[in-house]
């Protein structure tokens, strides 16, 4: 990377993304390897035939045994009809990974939850905190932002302040504020000026 400061975090972010992808893939592979018994089924669908009603059978059974004779309960069928009945049945062997489903749903819900929390923080909690911390005078200073009651409206402000101090922790805040400014600008062009994406 050309610059240590600019390149590394970016590389890190991208690598972590690709790691996530690989992790998901690996997870799927291991989940497939540790197949638990409820993750395979042999499903036979038998349509109604003469006076025998239609049926759907699900069995945990290995792939080689997945046929009508092993799966379908033929007790209720009369002997001469068994062959005709079975001919109409369709048996399919299917696999799924319940671990993948479970993990995916949990990942999705936790990301959604985090985003919602952050959204609530940004829109409701932060303005109150800021007002309490910086008092009334700050609000008057940023005159042209007062009318803007959207979240991040004070980003210009904080950006200006964080410029004067330069320690590592502030860099995080600085990056956050810059991101807020970008979002604010995007929001203006999409929702107010309607120049893009309308």
């Amino acid at each position, binding site marked *: *990377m*050309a*610059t240590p*400061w*600019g390149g590394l975090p*970016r590389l890190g*972010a*991208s690598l972590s*993304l*690709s790691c*996530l*992808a690989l992790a*998901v*893939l690996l997870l*799927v592979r291991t989940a*497939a390897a540790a197949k638990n018994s*409820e993750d395979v089924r042999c499903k036979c*669908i038998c*349509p*109604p*035939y*003469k006076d025998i009603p*239609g*049926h759907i059978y699900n069995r*945990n059974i290995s792939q080689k045994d997945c046929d009508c004779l092993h799966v379908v309960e033929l007790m209720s069928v009369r002997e001469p009809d068994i062959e005709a009945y079975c001919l*109409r049945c*369709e048996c399919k062997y*299917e*696999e*799924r990974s*319940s671990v*993948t*489903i*479970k993990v*995916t*749903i949990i*990942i*999705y819900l936790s*990301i*959604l939850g985090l*985003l919602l929390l952050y*959204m609530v923080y*940004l*829109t409701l909690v932060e303005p109150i905190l800021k007002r309490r911390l910086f008092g009334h005078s700050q609000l008057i200073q940023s005159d042209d932002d007062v009318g803007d009651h959207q*979240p991040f409206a004070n980003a*210009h402000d904080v*950006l*200006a302040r964080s*410029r004067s101090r330069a320690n590592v922790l502030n*860099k995080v805040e600085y990056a956050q504020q810059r991101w807020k*400014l970008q*979002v*604010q600008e*995007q929001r203006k062009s*999409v*929702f107010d000026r*309607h120049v*893009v*994406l*309308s």
Partner: protein
Amino acid sequence: MAMWQEKEHTKRPCWVQPTVLSAGLKLGRLVSPVFGGPGAMDNRGFQQGCFNSFQSSSSDEDLVDIPGTAMNFSLRDDVPPLDGEIEEDKSYNGGGIGSSTRMMDFLEEPIPGVGTYDDFNTIDWVREKSRDRDRHREITNKSKESTWALIHSVSDAFSGWLLMLLIGLLSGSLAGLIDISAHWMTDLKEGICTKGLWFNHEHCCWDSDQVTFENKDKCPKWNSWSQLLISTEEGAFAYIVNYFMYVLWALLFAFLAVSLVKVFAPYACGSGIPEIKTILSGFIIRGYLGKWTLIIKTITLVLAVSSGLSLGKEGPLVHVACCCGNILCHCFNKYRKNEAKRREVLSAAAAAGVSVAFGAPIGGVLFSLEEVSYYFPLKTLWRSFFAALVAAFTLRSINPFGNSRLVLFYVEFHTPWHLFELVPFILLGIFGGLWGALFIRTNIAWCRKRKTTQLGKYPVIEVLVVTAITAILAFPNEYTRMSTSELISELFNDCGLLDSSKLCDYENYFNSSKGGDLPDRPAGAGVYSAMWQLALTLIMKIVITIFTFGMKIPSGLFIPSMAVGAIAGRLLGVGMEQMAYYHHDWAIFNSWCSQGADCITPGLYAMVGAAACLGGVTRMTVSLVVIMFELTGGLEYIVPLMAAAMTSKWVADALGREGIYDAHIRLNGYPFLEAKEEFAHKTLAMDVMKPRRNDPLLTVLTQDSMTVEDVETVISETTYSGFPVVVSRESQRLVGFVLRRDLIISIENARKKQDGVVSTSIIYFTEHSPPMPPYTPPTLKLRNILDLSPFTVTDLTPMEIVVDIFRKLGLRQCLVTHNGRLLGIITKKDVLKHIAQMANQDPDSILFN
């Protein structure tokens, strides 16, 4: 100021936006007035004038000039820099970094970066491509020197394929995540699985023994909301509870989606394909393919799809894949710094997106080629192929639907079709074309209304209202209540004996013992009731989709279009089937459809109808047929699909010139130079170029006589994004072209970092500094930012050639000369304006500003 600037430098190069800079101005910080003023984004045109003196010159000479210049272009396309000037070109092409470091040692990368672009600007393909070639040449030369350099060159060559692998993996995994979660959340509207909360309806009853033939998806572990809340499933009250919960969940999902989009990433709304098309053609929208857009689009796409709105996930998946591509580009130097190379990667990423959306890898590659890409060399074709393959493989190993397929609506019938059936297929094509034209007209009208009136001020309320209407109308009808993908899957399905759904409620005769082919059968009561329900669904989908597409949530229109077509096709198919059954003695039937034969497959009609409607809306042909054919996995149906797609394109083209994506590009006024259309007007370069006859002179810089102050005045007084450099004002002989952004940055840096540079310093663009009298301030050399090979045409070049040059080379601007003297300039936006003017459209509405 300095400290902040310093931080800016170290943090992230080439990502400073005008917003940050203008924020600086707002706070009264000391920002040089030339540095990123509000006009920085505004590059409406270049400068003007100064050809009065040339107007009297004889036209004979001009005619001689034309072939010479034209040949000049064709050469330059292949041979990047002029041979004699390779050394100099290298320093300038490398982004001006090489020699500027000598001047400013501690500043390794110029900060907003020489050679980068402002937001909402167009890139210069020629410059970017030649920069990449120089970079490549440098690496190849170095690789002979040491082993480490050799390894570096090998890894550089390999990085493209590695990047494709990563894009495939990431977009495949994200598609799997979206599929699984969307399926689960869609079912959450109706109930919940007590066996495991994370199972959707189908997987809840996956291994249940208590499913019956009549009620395929009813099992004790799946509880509807009425069962959970009032512990009964029968009666009006339970119905009302379910209805209420359905609408409530839909509203909740839609509200979450739109507020997440609004708070975190406004760019995540819409389908994204029009913007990606524009970006691939060389436009810059900063943040459109960023991390937050990716996260928010992925998350909200699931919410939007599961809210039951009439939208699909296919278009947004292309955007998601492109975000993956763009983000992963940052890992590789080769792609991070070069906008043209990055666009090659994005083309391939778009292919991967379609590949996972439809489970059609080849269709994805062709979609990228036919619909989205602008510059698509063969190398990109192979890379797209690989990315699509990896993405499809990843999704397949996640197996999101549990049916070992990549999509929900996979089809598995192989019954043959008869030649006569081409007539109904063409009818479906006509329907698709009509639907496409109607949809584009009304949707664009509605979007224009949203853009211009008060409606656009209330995106959240709009989404909630549309969701409420959709949900309230959708619940009573079972075909609108189920998700659109499931509906399509049911419509595509060929009714066998095994199906017990209403749509397959035919009167069965058990006289044949064959399990496989079923003859045409008379429809039962279920089919008739399904027919009118489907007709209602058709009307509702047609109306509601028009208002849904373009709302401020992620929304694709492949699935709703396909649903409209599939419903129409199925209706026609069932109609044909019944006609063939009851009137098999008619002349049109009796030659090929005897009684008791299986002549008509309604599922095939649904498929053809879906293809026709999708074709009518998007105007795709080849990629559409390949996608549909990959969905069905049957070669037999290529001809019907082709017939329908072609007819629908003809009909739709006759009624409206452009597809939905182009219409949205035009609505937003993105500077997109359509490569498919011919320019056929007999105008000349001098009719288009700026300055016009009565305008002030063209703003030029001289190569060795202007002071820093002069240049700064020029910069602050004009808003042009570049200036031609001439030998002297008197001779107007062209030396090169310098970009405003590069100029601002270089002067700013020199003033800060280079000793003795003051306002009266002379700026020179020549190889050696001009002779100076003693005791003058030190001079400033800016040759490294000068483009020594700008494109030039003569003033009598026909516009069709100029348009072709702009299209094929992806130029940003082109200088116009007369007898070798600089006369004017044509920018991409001038060309677009001119095309719009020639097509009798309002030129100002076309352009992005």
